[in-house]
């Protein structure tokens, strides 16, 4: 059996920060400001990215926009099938979604199934005016007709590779890694 290659760093701490700064400006440009704008981070990686975007946007606009947390476990389409699952986390959407422009934030966009589940969950909370998607990494291999509005980096990958986004808040270090799945 060939030896497993060690993970390769595809983005470092500075790279992540620059991407998020650019995305923050793009969000403001596309939505012409922060009117009715809210952020919703998908548990767990998306929460920290959404918090960072919230900080960056409030630094630019001098106003803190609302931030929600979404756990999509209960909306998955593979609840009884997959063997890899994180424990159920709390969902906190402490504001009305009616007529809001929701920026959904996740770390990696892959098959699109997580985003499908997240949209179903959001719509159960109310009728947002629109939902936009911001991701740090788009690695391709979509299985559903879903695309991101804001992308940190397009990362061509093989289906069998693993892309992991490590963040200071949960892993103690900011970096994006790609490695061969065994």
């Amino acid at each position: 059996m060939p030896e497993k290659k060690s993970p390769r760093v595809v983005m470092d701490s500075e790279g992540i920060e620059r991407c998020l700064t650019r995305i923050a400006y793009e969000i403001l440009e596309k939505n012409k400001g922060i009117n009715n704008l809210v952020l919703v981070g998908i548990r767990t990686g998306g929460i920290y990215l959404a918090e960072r975007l919230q900080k960056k946007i409030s630094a630019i606009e001098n106003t803190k926009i609302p931030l929600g947390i979404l756990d999509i476990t209960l909306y998955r389409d593979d609840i009884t099938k997959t063997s890899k699952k994180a424990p159920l986390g709390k969902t906190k959407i402490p504001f009305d979604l009616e007529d809001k422009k929701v920026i959904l934030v996740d770390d990696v966009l892959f098959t699109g199934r997580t985003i499908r589940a997240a949209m179903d969950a959001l719509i159960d909370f109310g009728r947002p005016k629109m939902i936009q998607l911001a991701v740090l990494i788009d690695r391709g291999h979509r299985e559903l007709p879903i695309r991101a509005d804001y992308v940190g980096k397009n990362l061509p990958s093989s289906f069998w590779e693993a892309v992991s986004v490590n963040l200071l808040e949960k892993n103690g270090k900011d970096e994006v890694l790609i490695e061969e799945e065994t």
Partner: protein
Amino acid sequence: MMKLAKKDILGIRDMTVDEINLILETAESFLEISTREIKKVPTLRGKSIINLFYEASTRTRTSFEIAGKRLSADTINISASTSSVVKGETLIDTARNLEAMNPDIIVLRHSAAGAPHLLASLVRQSIINAGDGAHEHPSQALLDMMTIREKKGQLAGLKVAIIGDILHSRVARSNIYGLSKMGARIVVAGPATMMPRNIEQMGVKACTKLEDAITDADVVMMLRIQLERQKQNIFPSLREYAQHYCLNRKNIKLAKPDVIVMHPGPINRGVEISPDIADDPGCSVILDQVNNGVAVRMALLYMLSGGNE
């Protein structure tokens, strides 16, 4: 990752501390769903849950039904009085017939201790014990532990007084198993005729007087006098019982100032608890117990359906 490696939920006695913690944490995440405008998630779509109740119940049956419905499962209620049980069908035959209709989970309440264990060994479906005789009532103990943890932050080190008919109480038994595993100190009190022999073997302290048990308690759990189980006269009258074992404004002062008062319901007002205590939002958490009950049952249904593998 920690998971619940069980087909059935039969009792607290055979649960580990890790399993109890996992269930309580999962239940806490489910609380939020009941606060939404649309109180429903699609998680158990296409699953069927049969609530098979051989004994009267409002809270537990409704709670399991609501829990199933909020997870989008189909829930079917069968109560003994309107089923083929009145035509003489045995529990085993009823279960085999239900099994043939291919439900996913059967929630059973039965007056015979061990009935859910018997079913669990006979049918391939998951069985949840919703109370078997005077044996166990695991979902009640879990919702009680969830409520205590919510109010007190933790279970370890707390003094919990359980008062009343310990002998006939499956709620007491499940709570004693659970709370002692979680590190709480338990004191029970009740008339000698309602106290099981050798109760100390369960790791609790037993007293005869209510006052001795509730002194400095963090939690006082009052049990219902089960009039339907009082075939032999184990106390002279309700009035005399109330004189000695009713929690009231006066004797509650013996407990800690921030004591919480619990009751599994239904309440016999003025018998085991005075109405002003039961309705006092400062100490009574009785309705929080009911609210948490739905979340605990959602967690159990979810975890048995493979939601934690």
